[in-house]
């Protein structure tokens, strides 16, 4: 237990000293995971809405596929994204492997099924009569989408938090497509793995604590937005 305590003390030391490397890793983690979550939200919510509201052949197998994707292991995603982005792969020419962009892509692939699946469930829960009424009143597509977002607010914020939570905590994909390069692609989770294998447990614990604090603060903001009483 001394080790855990030392680690927590080390975390505070690193914060107070404003350790440049730790701050840089923390900011990169936040930037990469936020970007991946935002992109998955922008693409995932409309897809979720379409799957929730439209009826077409093959819809059920598609929804089942999305739901399977919600439990996709990050290392498997990492492996496939790496194969695509390696020089020997079809997108090798883009030179994205071992850059933060590669991590954003992998994290997007991890987050997007979560966002689609949860927003689908949230949007499907809206009373269809409400939508019919709005259409009868002459609402255009944009107005309709805005209404859906308002009505499914709780569920969509849950989708956002689930997506962000999944990507900020994953390590398998980040290490595989990012390479855990110091100053370039090292994020909190991959740094924790490295420090553990170096036997620097205090630093590893400190990084873990920082990850938890970061995830908590971000979720606190989202939760406040989610739980705010509608005006």
């Amino acid at each position, binding site marked *: 237990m001394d080790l855990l305590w030392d680690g927590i003390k080390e975390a505070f030391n690193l914060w107070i000293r404003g350790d440049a490397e730790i701050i840089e890793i923390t900011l990169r983690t936040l930037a990469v995971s936020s970007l991946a979550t935002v992109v998955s939200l922008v693409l995932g919510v409309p897809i979720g809405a379409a799957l929730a509201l439209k009826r077409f052949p093959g819809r059920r197998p598609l929804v089942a596929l999305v739901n399977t994707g919600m439990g996709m292991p990050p290392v498997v995603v990492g492996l496939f994204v790496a194969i695509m982005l*390696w*020089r*020997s792969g079809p997108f*090798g*020419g883009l*030179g994205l*492997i*071992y850059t933060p962009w590669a991590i954003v892509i992998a994290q997007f692939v991890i987050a997007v099924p979560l966002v689609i699946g949860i927003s689908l469930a949230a949007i499907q829960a809206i009373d269809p009569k409400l939508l019919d009424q709005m259409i009868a009143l002459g609402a255009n597509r944009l107005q309709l989408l805005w209404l859906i977002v308002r009505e499914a607010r709780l569920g969509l914020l849950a989708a956002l938090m689930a997506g962000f939570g999944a990507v900020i905590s994953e390590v398998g994909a980040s290490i595989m497509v990012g*390479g*855990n*390069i*110091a100053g*370039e692609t090292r994020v909190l989770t991959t740094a924790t793995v*490295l420090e*553990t*294998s*170096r*036997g620097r*447990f205090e630093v590893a614990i400190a990084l873990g604590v920082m990850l938890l604090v970061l995830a908590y603060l971000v979720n606190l903001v989202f939760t406040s937005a989610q739980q705010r009483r509608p005006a």
Partner: protein
Amino acid sequence: MIPPVMLISAYRSRLWVRLTLAGLVALTLLVLACRPAPPAPRGDLILATTTSVQDSGLLEALIPVFEAGVDVNVKPIAVGTGAALRLAEEGNADALFVHAPDAERALVDAGHAYNRHLVAYNDFVIVGPRTDPANIAGGTDAAMAFTAIAATEARFISRGDDSGTHKRERAIWAEVGIVPGDSWYAESGQGMGATLIIADQKLAYVLTDRGTFLALSDDVDLIPLVEGDPALLNLYSVLQVSPAKLGVNALAAVAWIEFMLSEEAQAIINDFRRDEFGRPLFHAAAGLQEAEVIERFAAQAADG
């Protein structure tokens, strides 16, 4: 008297000559200016390497010095040597810094890499719990120690990740004709640091490189038991990936190899954390042949 028309045409023709001459001069200058200067290495260098040089911190001591001298950004990818060689084979890396001589030679023979140079050496050590259930302490024969571990079915943790260390471990098992795999033998599937930690927790024997073991010696309660066997010599080499592969940064790879063979890099390798541990983690080996290193190693082992 020359008719004015002819004067004009003569003037015109002179103008053309002048223009042509001026154009030629300009073109020559342009060609001279554009003639490729001796190409300078730049861009990213993907260095496929092993966990031992990352976990011990050696890479972090070498890379900034290299990057200060050239316009190259090193991207070290620390994986097991098996994975590093595979990255090279597929052209997904530019240079290698690895420690599996037989596999490296095979890679060179297959045409995937070349320009192989020995840059450092240290040794593998058989470490284990203080209780030493197989009673191997003080030995200098790795094969005998492995036989004793198998005979007493003492717990042994293997890397199991096709790394250079794992390759060496398997070579020793093969030499003694034992196929480990019973309940006393387990594979961690992880890097050297993580494997030492597991062996420490499970009171098991483990084959480790000297560098990672010293770097973790404060954190694990394992002690060196068998060392000095020439079969435990650990040779680190650098190689460049064949430029025939798509997108390989050969210029940067050549610069990296030149740097690793330089006196500056060799001094960094030789002095790396030497004061901290009272002994070297790595020995410089640039310019030496394998046979010479084996001789030196035997002499050092004899000196204790």
